[in-house]
């Protein structure tokens, strides 16, 4: 099982993650940073636990394109 960890404080709002992973990320018009959908916030670190049958190759794209390296995928 995988989860996406997203450190939102350091986001610079380039919107690359939204482009490659539109199922999980959208841009916020309030502060220009991206939002990890359905995630849980704990001190600015957003976590989304993914259920089975997730295409790892698909979600790893956002990790690769993030210029500030604030998106991580971990196993739980």
């Amino acid at each position, binding site marked *: 099982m995988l989860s996406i960890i997203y450190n939102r404080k350091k*986001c*610079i*709002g*380039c*919107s*690359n993650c939204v482009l490659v992973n539109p199922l999980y990320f959208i*841009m*916020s*018009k*309030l*502060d*220009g*940073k991206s939002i990890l959908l359905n995630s849980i916030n704990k001190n600015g670190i957003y976590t989304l636990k993914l259920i089975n049958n997730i295409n790892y190759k698909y979600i790893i794209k956002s990790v690769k*394109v*993030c*210029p*500030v390296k604030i998106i991580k995928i971990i196993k739980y």
Partner: protein
Amino acid sequence: MKKIELLSPAGNYDSLYAAINSGADSIYFGVEQLNMRALSSNFLIKDIKKISNICNRFNIKKYITLNTIIYDNDILLVKKILNYSKLYNIDGVIAMDNFVIRYANKLKIPVHISTQLNITNLETLKFYSKYSDIIVLSRELNLNQIKFICDSIKKNKIKGRFNKLIKIEMFAHGSLCMAISGKCYLSLHSDNSSANRGACKQNCRREYTVKDYNNNSYKIENKYIMSSKDLSTINFLDKIINTGISILKIEGRGKSPEYVSVVTKCYKEAIESIYNNNYTYNKIKKWEKEIKKVYNRGFWSGYYLGKNIGEWTNKSGSSSLYKKIYIGIVKNYLDKKSIMIVLINSYDIKINDYIYIIGNKIGVKIMKIKELYNEKKNKVNIIKNGNICTIKTNFRVYKYNKIYKVIKN
């Protein structure tokens, strides 16, 4: 004759106090992610109020930078930042994007046209004068071209939004980009990290080998083929002031507080001595020596004196003569005895060491340790790591200020 304004960078509160204490006439800072130093520590929107209050207390001007490219999803954030700036009387916004310029105009906040807009001639300046008050010229101009622009503003009475003559701002000191006025795409190509969104990964500062398609590598003198030396104008500052510019800007929001302190102090002294007619060779040598003690990649005069080729550094990182290492933190300050109690939690501290005290409210102070006392109030020559010591100071320090030892690089 009105003195030139010295504009210093403030990347964090320590640098802000360092700039104020070293004699800056104004400071500039960025908030959130919409400025050219999005990767370094930045202020938040709520800090605008505090920064404004601090600057008002010391009677210096404060400008906010908002000079990245702006996407549609940033519009609300831009509006929020500018509304806050208006609310807390920020003296100007350094802008590149037309929406930022227009919205600042609407709120009647003075606008500085950023160097990112690359203003290199009078006609472009005339165009932007309708929307701004201060114009930062392109860093690639030479002194004659700058003088022509400044003279023409007076001659043709080119006025800005607030019906005053347009002021010219120039970079005097700091890192230079290898691309024209910061418009570089290297970082975007290699790391998907746009320099024009403040996320420059500094590819130009790395070592490279040059090869052709047959895999023949070229013999090059310097492997840092793109890393420009830093700009320094302290040795011809009189010529810069003679051009008629109004604001002298120091680059370095991403740099350390002691860099801000030393550079601001030297330029302030240089400006004072030019106006007092005692800008001498010996003084210039002294300032140059001081500036070399903090972060630098070696110095050159930029394009101001008309060089036909840029100068490139031959080193990775800083060529500064000294560096700082963290040694401890101020636990308390006793006002009556003017002594500070310091917890040493890294390395040792000795008599005759030079230390920086850096932190909130104090900025940067440098001092030589003349007397050291241990926990039992006995005079000692050295305090080992992990102990508490008492040091006499001749200035006020504050709890949680950090202590650094100055050592040779």
